[in-house]
């Protein structure tokens, strides 16, 4: 019972936040709504017995990515048209498309013959298992992703630096 209430509450949080992210005119509003959306998603993870993932979500997304986004927003913020800095454009085309997509996906989800395992799904700490699998069966993706991180960071540095012109 509580599970269901929690679920629905989190659902509401996420959806409202997402709607604000999508439809808000002010980009600062969108950024902060994104924060709430991330938090909501983290809590959903916790509801799904993904404890490690929930904490990681909060740490990385909220503490990392969102901060990065906020930095960028601040750096590129035009004060002059703050009210209208994030105008939606042709909302009337995008809404039907998104609605249509939602309809499709929901239909797919509801009509598909899922066969989940019988009984209550277990809840338990997953950190050890994740750790084991990261250094076990999934060590290759792990290594590759670390390389990818390095490459990405270097690439970002290269892209964002100022051009040095020889005078």
């Amino acid at each position, binding site marked *: 019972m509580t599970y269901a209430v929690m679920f629905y509450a989190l659902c509401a949080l996420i959806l409202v936040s997402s709607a604000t992210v999508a439809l808000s005119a002010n980009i600062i509003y969108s950024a902060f709504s994104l924060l709430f959306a991330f938090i909501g998603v983290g809590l959903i993870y916790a509801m799904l017995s993904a404890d490690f993932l929930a904490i990681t979500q909060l740490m990385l997304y909220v503490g990392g990515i969102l901060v990065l986004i906020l930095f960028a927003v601040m750096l590129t913020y035009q004060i002059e048209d703050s009210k209208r800095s994030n105008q939606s454009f042709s909302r009337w085309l*995008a809404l039907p498309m998104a609605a249509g997509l939602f309809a499709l996906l929901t239909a797919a989800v509801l009509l598909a013959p899922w066969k989940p395992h019988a009984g209550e799904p277990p809840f338990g700490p997953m950190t050890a298992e994740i750790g084991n699998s990261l250094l076990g069966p999934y060590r290759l993706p792990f290594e590759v992703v670390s390389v990818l991180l390095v490459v990405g960071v270097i690439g970002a540095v290269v892209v964002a630096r100022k051009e040095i012109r020889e005078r």
Partner: protein
Amino acid sequence: MVDFWALALIPLAPLLGAVYNGLLGSRMQARFGKPAVHVPAIVLPAISFAVTVAAFVKMVSLPAGERNLFCHLWNWLPVGGLDAGLAFIMDPLTLVMCFVVTFVGTLIHLYSVGYMREEPGYWRFFSYLNLFMFSMLVLVLGDNFVLMFVGWEGVGLCSYLLIGFWYKEHKNAVAGMKAFVVNRIGDFGFMLGVLLLFWGMQGDWSQGRFRPQPQAASAAGVSAQQPEPAVPAPTAGLTFRHVKERLSEPAFREAFIHKKVFGISLVALIGTLLFIGAMGKSAQLPLYVWLPDAMAGPTPVSALIHAATMVTAGVYMVARLNFIFALSPFVMTWIAVIGVLTAVFAATIGFFQHDIKKVLAYSTISQLGFMFIAVGVGAYGVGIFHLMTHAFFKACLFLGAGSVIVGCHHEQDMRKMGGLGKLMPVTAATYFIACCAIAGFPLTSGFFSKDEILWKAFNAGNLILPGGGIAVWLLGALGAVCTSFYMFRSYYMTFSGEYRGGSRAHDRETGAHADPHQPPKESPRSMTCVLIALAALSLVGGFAGLPRLWHLPNYLHQWLEPVFEGTAGLIRDAGHGASVEWALMALSIALALTGWQLARWLYLDNRNPIPQKLYASRAAWVHGIHALVYNKYYVDEFYNATVVKAVMQARLALDWFDRTVVDGLVNVTRPIVLGLAWLHGKTDNRVVDGAVNGTASIISDAGGVLCLLQTGNIRTYLYLAMAGGIVLILASYVLF
């Protein structure tokens, strides 16, 4: 039938000479001089003569009825029942002809060395002469009609080439063409005769309709490959042996004699057509007009071709095909009549000619007439005998005339000659001997042959003339007198009296001007040796054919008998006795002497004023007769006005047809072609180019349309990506 491979050498040796001189002659002459040209050209016919002698020796060793040498080179026309192969056959008749051709031919080659000394086209002359020898030998040695016809045409061609040897002068070229064209008319008749013979020998006739024999077709096809004794032999082939064998079967012969084509007897038709060929080749009455004009060629040519060999091809042909001619008395009579008329006709023309070569030309025509009298009355062997003796004395006469012409700096008019007897003694003596021979003085060769001809004519029982052969004999005797007269006339005008030359003598033959004041002198040794040889033969050649009347052996007659025995039964004689023969012989001698004395009286030393007075006479009838005879009875003009004009008109008509009808038809296609071209152009422009350009514009327009997708706007791309994603999901939903 004995195989004698060397027979092939007889025609091939001169062919080699012709090819050598034809291809390399001019270069050889330029580098090594004249001996490089004439030594092979003389040696090769001499080789032919040597092989002929060898063949003679071989034949003598064979028994009398089987003297046939054979040499088969290859199968030339294996078509159905036809078996014309490239094969040579030497029987006694051919041997006589080969002997005459090669011997006289070689002598004349020798003579030409001296005569054609200054001629730049020396090599060409010898090449043509050798080619002529080749053709003539193929003619006499061929064992079938087709090969004989090849030789027949070949001698016609060589005659044309040699008459027009100095082709740069228009009249010589025209004379050559005239000879060729008139010969062709004869050849046409010959071909028709051969074709009719071949056709008539097959098949079966009833009610005048031709029906091929049912077994003939298959038999001809089958037995061409494997002759079976049960199946009858092929009904028609082209070798002389075959025709002779078939015609000697009595049943076939009877049937053949009675075959009719459109109501005309087949045999008569064949014989007449074949004789038309002889008329053309041997210059008999309607088709003789080429021979006098042929004197435009060099004198050795006249001697060889138009005296000794080519013109005798007709006589040879009739003798060879005696088994066909003997079947039809009509044809035999026709031949004899034409022969005697020609003899008299030509002899009269010879009275008034003053070109020495023309006199000899008409004499040749006349003597050929005599030969045809002989074969016409069935005395084939006698005709061949006269052919042989005529070759000797006529060649001697022509070569003597050539010697005279060269000596008088190419002057041919007898009125400007005279007195050459002292200046050119050898020529004069040989010429006189030859004149005696042709006139028929006793014990010369001409006497024996001509006398026998006249006797056989008198004694002929086969002719369908009223009075039999007597009319023929009468005219023949007249011809003999005329012959004697005009030949001695030419002798006395040329060799007796004083030299009347000395005016500007125009060199008619080569165009060079000679010194007019230099008197004529005797010809070089190469020429006089030949003259002496021929004169000797004119004297002794007759002893090969001595008359039976004198109870002396007649070798030639014995030799030739096997060839003519098949027809002996068909030729009848009128049964006059030996006393008549003696009388006729005496009469011939008397006539010959009369002619001689008459000529001597009128023309010796040019003392007699009668000829001059006749020329200067005012009387119209004298002039009329003289003009008529001198202008050869206007025969050439008559032919010009009729035949030649008709052909020219036909040419104009055909030209008109070609220009208007044929060209008109061609021009009709012009608008069609133009229309098609226009259509083609339009199609190419609009359709093809349109397609090509259209494709290009489609692509560029499509590109222009697709360009619109590339807005450069990220949002548009996003939209499209989303839309595409949704569509994909939907599609996979629907499809799967």
